[in-house]
């Protein structure tokens, strides 16, 4: 009897979270997979089953491959640098140097700002002619105006810089919290044993930070697919899709072109990619992560 009641309590406690998880995560995911095998309903013509036609269109869609490639470079460009920067900044503001409070605020400020606002600020930095970057270039070095957002060769790099600037401070907070939870006796013991700072960093600090690194890097991977707000403001994916990312293309397909069937197919690709990456990271890091 007692056992049965505990079982009921368990489900009661779980049910609010489960309800939300099912309504907003699992049901839409399953529905998306189902929709990806149907055509787009228009007016009074309902969606009809078309098998793998959407997936065949996907393989032939040049724009899809382009945004996927862009997304790959966007991830490669943002993840290591923003995580690395975050660690450096955390070590810096965790030290006992003067002015750390100010640097903490400065490093964290971009995280507090909404990405749309950030994008508008950077839009001004990048503006050819009278933007901040060009004012420096022409004022200090007498260089000609540069159109970073209007050139397909530089636009993606310009977007990557914005994303790093936005993200590094956020990840820094996690590293800072982790650093502050590391007992100082370890450092003292290392000093007594005559270990160099670098040795301490490599053999003690990094392994202890591994759970944080796993958490942060999974977040960084997800963000490299999720962060597209600045594209709306700065480039709308242009020129010629040079700065478009997978999620932005899904948005365009679904809510600009109203190709909801095809958008569901693109979403399935994104779902698979994200699951594979997250699971892969768990396995990759699993042996190196030590939880205390």
């Amino acid at each position, binding site marked *: 009897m007692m056992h049965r009641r505990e079982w009921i309590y368990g489900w009661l406690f779980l049910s609010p979270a489960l309800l939300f998880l099912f309504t907003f995560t699992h049901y839409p995911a399953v529905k998306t997979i189902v929709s990806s095998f149907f055509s787009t309903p*228009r*007016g*009074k013509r309902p969606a009809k089953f078309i098998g793998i036609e959407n997936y065949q269109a996907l393989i032939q869609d040049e*724009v899809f491959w382009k945004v996927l490639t862009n997304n790959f470079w966007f991830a490669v460009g943002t993840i290591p640098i923003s995580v690395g920067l975050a660690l450096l900044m955390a070590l810096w503001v965790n030290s006992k140097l003067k002015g750390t409070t100010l640097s903490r605020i400065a490093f964290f400020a971009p995280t507090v700002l909404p990405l749309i606002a950030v994008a508008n600020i950077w*839009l001004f930095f990048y*503006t*050819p*002619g*009278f933007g901040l970057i060009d004012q420096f270039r*022409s004022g200090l070095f*007498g*260089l*000609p*105006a540069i*159109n970073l*957002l*209007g*050139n*397909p060769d530089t636009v993606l790099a310009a977007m990557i810089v914005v994303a790093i600037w936005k993200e590094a401070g956020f990840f820094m907070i996690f590293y800072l919290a982790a650093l502050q939870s590391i007992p100082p006796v370890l450092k003292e013991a290392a000093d007594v044993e005559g270990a160099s700072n670098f040795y301490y960093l490599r053999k003690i600090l990094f392994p202890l930070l591994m759970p944080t690194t796993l958490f942060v890097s999974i977040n960084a991977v997800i963000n490299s697919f999720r962060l597209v707000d600045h594209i709306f403001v700065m*480039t*709308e994916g*242009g*020129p*010629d*899709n040079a700065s478009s990312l997978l999620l932005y293309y899904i948005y*365009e397909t679904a*809510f*600009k*072109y*109203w*190709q909801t069937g095809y958008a569901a197919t693109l979403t399935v690709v994104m779902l698979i990619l994200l699951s594979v990456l997250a699971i892969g990271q768990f396995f990759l890091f699993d042996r190196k992560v030590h939880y205390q």
Partner: protein
Amino acid sequence: MKRFGRFRTSVASIALLWGMTSAAMAVDLEFYFPVAVGGKAADTIKELTDEYAAANPGVNIDAVYAGSYGDTVTKALTASRGGKPPQLSVILSVDMFTLIDEEVIMPFDDLVETDEDKAWLQSFYPAFMENSQTGGKTYGIPFQRSTPVLYWNKEAFAEAGLDPDTPPSTWEETIEMGKKLVKKDGDGNVTRWGVRIPSSGFPYWLFQGLTTQNDVILANSDGNQTNFADPKVAEALQYLVDLSTKHEVMAPGIIEWGATPKAFFEGQTAMMWTSTGNLTNVRNNAPFDFGVGLLPGNVRRGAPTGGGNFYIFSDSSDEQKKAAFDFVKWISQPAQSAKWTIATGYVAPRPDTWETAEMKAYTDDFAPALVARDQLEFAVAELSTYQNQRVTAVFNDALAAAITGSKSVEDALAEAQKQADAILKEYR
């Protein structure tokens, strides 16, 4: 006790009766509107709907600000799919085919009853109606419409030894004058360009000015056939590319829309092409004397139109449709239309608005406002097809590829035509 009971019943029946009559009399209209230019537009819409509601007690209009043009069409379509469409909405004129394709709007012709209504349908500038009619029916009523014009900096013209009151009137003159207007500093860097034709986001709109001037139309009026691979289109695109690469009178690469007025104010460019929607902005912020003129011509003068129309949604009751029709008729009358134009800078869509005392006073004070009206004579429909957003996206990508030099003009256009054909095949 008994009296009290009767009293209660009578109160109840009166309440019931009152409820029924008010339900029979009052018509509720939901009206989505976008705001594409800053400031006063939303207030003016509220003012106008309040004024109408005060004069027509039987109609309640709920004017809902729905965001940008893109947000508004998204909201209207989502609401329609959910079975709760608005009765009325202002949406881009180019979205007409999309709305027809989704079977959510109805032609105004079905609501026309009297000769007066018929005359009203004929009272708008034909240039604006091109984007509002298809298959012999009228689906949209022009409301917040615009057209691109040429703005020039008179001081820069004088400085370059040009007549400050004469802007270029042809493609050739744009190049000639542009070359004189380009200014370089000691390092050989350009500090002022001759002309600026923005190309970010939706380059097709201003490019359509060039194609019209080259006497070629980009899409048919049935919205199922595009003409991107025409040699005249290629010629127009080559001209646009040459302005930067060959003649060096315009900055290279994609040029941002948003920064264009600012670049003009800062003296970074001596001329710019942009919407009449910027008139008030330029008037308030340009620190120099400026002129507003027709876009230069080539084979002919030409410009596209742009902006939003009124649409009536079909999934409404007959009373609602009638009331919506009546409201659109009212708000497009010269008095209301003049108020709207003066507050926002949009082009008044019918000739008699320009004859009102208010508009006369406004244009006497600020003559550039007339340029847009004078250009309507040369204006054509904005590019619009079925699956409009997809087709224009394909075309925009092609233009961007040619402007940034990643594809040749001919290849880019031929590919765009091929893709547009594939999309539009099912509508032929």
